[in-house]
């Protein structure tokens, strides 16, 4: 059964990927990318990687297509083909692929229990984590405790990427012209959507909290919870407009929180450093090492959740605010566009000054 699912899902993935490569309409490619995310999450599920499936569901199927569609709304959805380069690329890609396929002959068989990857640290994690960390979800104990330093790095990367997006898109997003608010009459009049969104947002937040604090016992944790939390805000912003959601969580607050999360994580590390253990060694946090681990994991998962949620919300704000700058859709003639954007930017600067 598992094998059948594995083969079917991977075949569907391959078909999707090929058609993404072939399709000319970028918006259609974005749709297919959403399907691609759903499929790969289904694959992770059949592989027993529940935490990964959880994350991929939220990110690959939800946020990533949304961001791509947002970008396309700004940049136009047509692309031009280039026959010459396509041939060149094929010429490069096919031999590389053939070489890699030959190389797979030396790989251990799929699912082999005696493959090298299964030999070194994994048995230790599986056998000792209950005694050392005391929580059933091995993924969480590896993520938050054994490899806590690595995860800290990842959180910093997310924070930095958020900063990068901020610095790239911040300058031009100061203006607030409600008149240019994207299609205000199209969706906001839609009573069905408004009511359903209102009904759903509270359960989404509640669910995010559940995922955040249930991560030690089942699939879940800070990364997933952060994304789900952000999705709640994004839904609100989509239905009620960017201004409404900014009244709930202002731009400054979100920026502040994205730093607070990293700070929480780092200060847990410093705390354990101060009490004479090594950086991010949570056993220093309580008299009993195992309960110290518990406290440490809950604290850093909180930090991760806050940072991820804040960065995702911030990215959404920044991208959505770009649409206001561009009151018109992307026109076909590229040389007009530059001047338009220039005037819009000028206007934004004047607004900012005034």
């Amino acid at each position, binding site marked *: 059964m598992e094998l059948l699912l594995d083969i079917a899902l991977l075949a569907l993935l391959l078909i999707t990927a090929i058609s993404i490569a072939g399709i000319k309409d970028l918006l259609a490619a974005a749709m297919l990318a959403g399907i691609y995310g759903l499929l790969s999450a289904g694959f992770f599920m059949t592989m027993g*990687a529940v935490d990964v499936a959880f994350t991929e569901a939220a990110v690959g199927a939800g946020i990533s297509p949304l961001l*791509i569609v947002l970008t396309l709304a700004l940049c136009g959805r047509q692309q031009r083909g280039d026959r010459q380069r396509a041939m060149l690329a094929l010429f490069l890609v096919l031999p*590389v692929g053939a070489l890699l396929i030959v190389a797979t002959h030396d790989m251990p068989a799929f699912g082999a229990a005696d493959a090298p990857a299964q030999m070194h640290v994994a048995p230790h994690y599986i056998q000792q984590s209950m005694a050392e960390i005391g929580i059933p979800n091995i993924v969480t104990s590896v993520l938050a405790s054994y490899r806590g330093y690595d995860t800290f790095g990842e959180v910093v990367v997310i924070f930095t990427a958020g900063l990068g997006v901020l610095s790239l898109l911040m300058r031009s997003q100061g203006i607030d012209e409600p008149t240019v608010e994207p299609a205000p009459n199209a969706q906001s009049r839609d009573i069905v959507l408004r009511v359903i969104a209102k009904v759903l947002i509270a359960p989404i937040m509640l669910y995010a909290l559940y995922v955040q604090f249930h991560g030690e016992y089942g699939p879940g944790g800070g990364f997933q919870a952060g994304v789900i939390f952000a999705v709640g805000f994004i839904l609100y912003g989509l239905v009620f407009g960017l201004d409404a959601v900014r009244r709930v969580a202002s731009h400054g607050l979100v920026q502040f929180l994205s730093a607070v999360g990293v700070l929480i994580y780092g200060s847990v590390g410093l705390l354990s450093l101060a009490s004479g253990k090594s950086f991010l060694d949570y056993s220093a946090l309580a008299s009993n090492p195992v309960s110290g681990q518990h406290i440490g994991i809950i604290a850093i998962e909180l930090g991760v959740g806050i940072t991820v949620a804040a960065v995702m919300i911030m990215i959404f704000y920044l991208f959505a605010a770009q649409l206001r700058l561009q009151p018109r859709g992307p026109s076909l003639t590229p040389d007009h566009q530059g001047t338009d954007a220039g005037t819009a930017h000028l206007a934004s600067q004047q607004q900012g000054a005034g």
Partner: protein
Amino acid sequence: MPAPRIWRHSNRGPVNVLLASHYNYWIVIALMMIGLYMVIAQGNLVKKIIGLNIFQTSVFIFYISVGKVDGAGAPILSAGETLYSNPLPHVLILTAIVVGIATTALALALTIRIKRAYGSIEERDIQAAEDKQDRATPPLPVGQEQ
């Protein structure tokens, strides 16, 4: 910790065994090559980013496939189960997915800025605009454009 055994070659079997035991790797390579192809062949920046995402996902699938043990369950300890999949690839990929979306957002933000600056997200147009500018004026720092 059990003594590490020497891993045996198990690919000497008949073709269908080879198919079952290497199918995942082949799909991973195909996906990876599609991603690479898109990055090289497509002039459109958004399409390139989608291609990068496909490439990235293929690596995720590879890691998860490597971590899979036949008949093993998800790495969440529960009573009465002894065999678990390798949790380490799951951890690496879980964080990589979230980092991946953050970097994708960064790339898309850059694309938006390029669109602002050059009026196009096609590589050729950007190159042409650059060339024109180079000929017209002494080179400006890019930040000055927008």
